[in-house]
């Protein structure tokens, strides 16, 4: 009987274990996690804080029994101490041994705690584990003012959620605008305006976090390069690091992002050892360099692929084109290269912009949709884009990522077809209009 051991119970680990047993019921599949739970969506935590989602229960994909009934040997609250690659045995801290024929690392990522004064004070929190989030949730009722550090996706979700609990919310980031690592200032402006005007969020951009002060071990003040902010709680959306210590200890190669190097079948440099999810490097479809991604969509699909291949399949994973999106009242999204990133790399580009509507002008459902496209001026192939507005951002971001993957040109987008139905689609599609705008700039 072939034995597969999966280390890590997030999206990747759960995906790997379930697909392996589904593929071959004769397999002995063990999934080990140091936490109490597996298979939940940490991305949903801010939405429970903000009461858009009623309870944390809704974030669990399935109860633990579901996986046991599938035939997975599930070992929660089990910490892996070391892996003996020679004897092919995983050892836990309490002396248990898990022999394997194939091993899959799905160890995910961890926050790098910033080296700042008093960073260990009570009231300074990191959002990832659902049990800790459950403990934190009732405490939010007593929080009057909170600081969120860094305007990454989780940070944006938090600054949308916390004001709904009556918390005066401050965002501190050394960058220039929301999501500045992959979005443009002009496209984030409507969302920023909404956060300030409708939710009263205080935005402190171009500002470094410099430390914390407290009293009786509890946070009272967040220190920044722009001044002190009195606060009861600080959410640190700290830099994320791939959790690769265990893999590296058995000689698994890591790359320029610090994550594990895998081929397109999720095989590592060690024979019979796979890795998937936020602990691996994934290939960027346009730039042809490895990148480190943490969203659950990649973790889940890679995990399933690793599990299938550990079970004997020969599935492959293509390079990625990274559609992204978030927001509620104002949605933002995009795919691949922003104007900022294009500027940073020095790649040539042409920009096309347009503002359209998401439904027929005479229908009450219509909202604005701002579109910005980037294309290579020589080949006219689209290389990136962003969307800001009402419903339909996610679908457009997915569409654009796929269009870029297929090498779609501005001409093809300018002549694209679109659905016209009063509640869900206007006569003209703003993506086409933005493509025409880009083409006009090339001709002009």
């Amino acid at each position, binding site marked *: 009987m072939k034995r597969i051991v999966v280390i*890590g119970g997030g999206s990747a680990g759960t995906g790997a274990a379930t697909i392996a047993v589904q593929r071959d019921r004769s397999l002995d599949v063990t999934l080990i996690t*140091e936490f109490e739970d597996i298979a939940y969506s940490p991305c949903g935590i801010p939405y429970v804080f903000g009461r858009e989602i009623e309870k944390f229960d809704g974030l669990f994909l399935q109860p633990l029994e579901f996986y046991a009934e599938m035939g997975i040997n599930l070992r929660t609250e089990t910490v892996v101490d070391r892996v003996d690659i020679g004897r092919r045995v995983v050892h836990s801290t309490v002396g248990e041994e898990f022999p394997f024929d194939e091993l899959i690392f799905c*160890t995910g*990522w*961890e*926050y*790098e*705690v910033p*080296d700042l004064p008093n960073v260990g004070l009570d009231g300074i929190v*990191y959002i*990832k584990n659902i049990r*800790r989030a459950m403990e934190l949730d009732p405490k939010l009722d007593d929080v009057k003012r909170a600081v969120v550090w860094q305007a990454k996706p989780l940070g944006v979700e938090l600054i949308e959620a916390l004001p709904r609990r009556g918390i005066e919310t401050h965002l501190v980031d*050394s*960058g*220039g*605008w929301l999501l*500045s*690592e992959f979005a*443009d*200032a*002009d496209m*984030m*402006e409507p969302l920023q305006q909404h956060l300030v005007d409708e939710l009263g969020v205080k935005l402190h*951009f*171009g*500002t*470094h976090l410099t430390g914390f002060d407290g009293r009786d071990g509890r946070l009272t003040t967040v220190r920044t*390069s722009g001044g002190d902010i009195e606060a009861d709680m600080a959410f640190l959306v700290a830099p994320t*690091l791939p*959790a*690769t210590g*265990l893999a*590296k200890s058995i000689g698994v*190669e*890591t*790359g*320029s992002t*610090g994550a594990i*190097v*895998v*081929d*397109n079948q999720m*095989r590592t*440099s060690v024979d019979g050892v796979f890795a998937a999810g936020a602990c691996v490097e994934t*290939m960027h*479809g346009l*730039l*042809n*360099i*490895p990148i480190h991604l943490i969203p659950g969509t990649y973790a889940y699909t890679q995990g399933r692929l690793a599990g299938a291949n550990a079970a004997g399949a020969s599935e*492959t994973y*293509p*390079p990625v084109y990274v559609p992204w999106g978030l927001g509620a009242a104002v949605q933002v999204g995009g795919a691949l290269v922003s104007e*900022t990133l294009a*500027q*940073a*790399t*020095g*790649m040539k580009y042409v920009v096309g912009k347009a503002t359209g509507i998401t439904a027929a002008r005479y229908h009450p459902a219509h909202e604005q949709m701002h579109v910005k496209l980037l294309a290579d001026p020589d080949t006219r192939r689209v290389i990136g884009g962003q969307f800001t507005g009402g419903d339909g951002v996610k679908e457009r971001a997915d569409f654009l990522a796929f269009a870029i*993957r297929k090498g779609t040109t501005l001409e093809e987008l300018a002549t694209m077809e679109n659905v016209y139905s009063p509640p869900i689609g206007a006569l003209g599609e703003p993506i086409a209009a933005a493509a025409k705008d880009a083409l006009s700039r090339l001709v002009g």
Partner: protein
Amino acid sequence: MPITTTSPARPSLVQRFRSLTEAYLLYVAQKEMVRRYPGAGTPPAPKRGYGLLAVFFLPGFKLTPWAIKKRLLSALFRRPAQHWPDKPWENR
């Protein structure tokens, strides 16, 4: 795996180079974007080491054509195992 770490794995030289230069190039680009779209963003705050990069890294980076830069990035950061085909299903 814990959710936080105060002792991350020691980064390699390539890792440190990539991390620092990526952050710096984004910082420079963000400043340009703020200039290009007034009112839409705030000038980013510089970090330690940016002064040296401005003198010893940025000029050479800007002078290098994109086609060469792309090849250099690939040579520097991509391992042999990471030559992932665009359409792997076509080889089945």
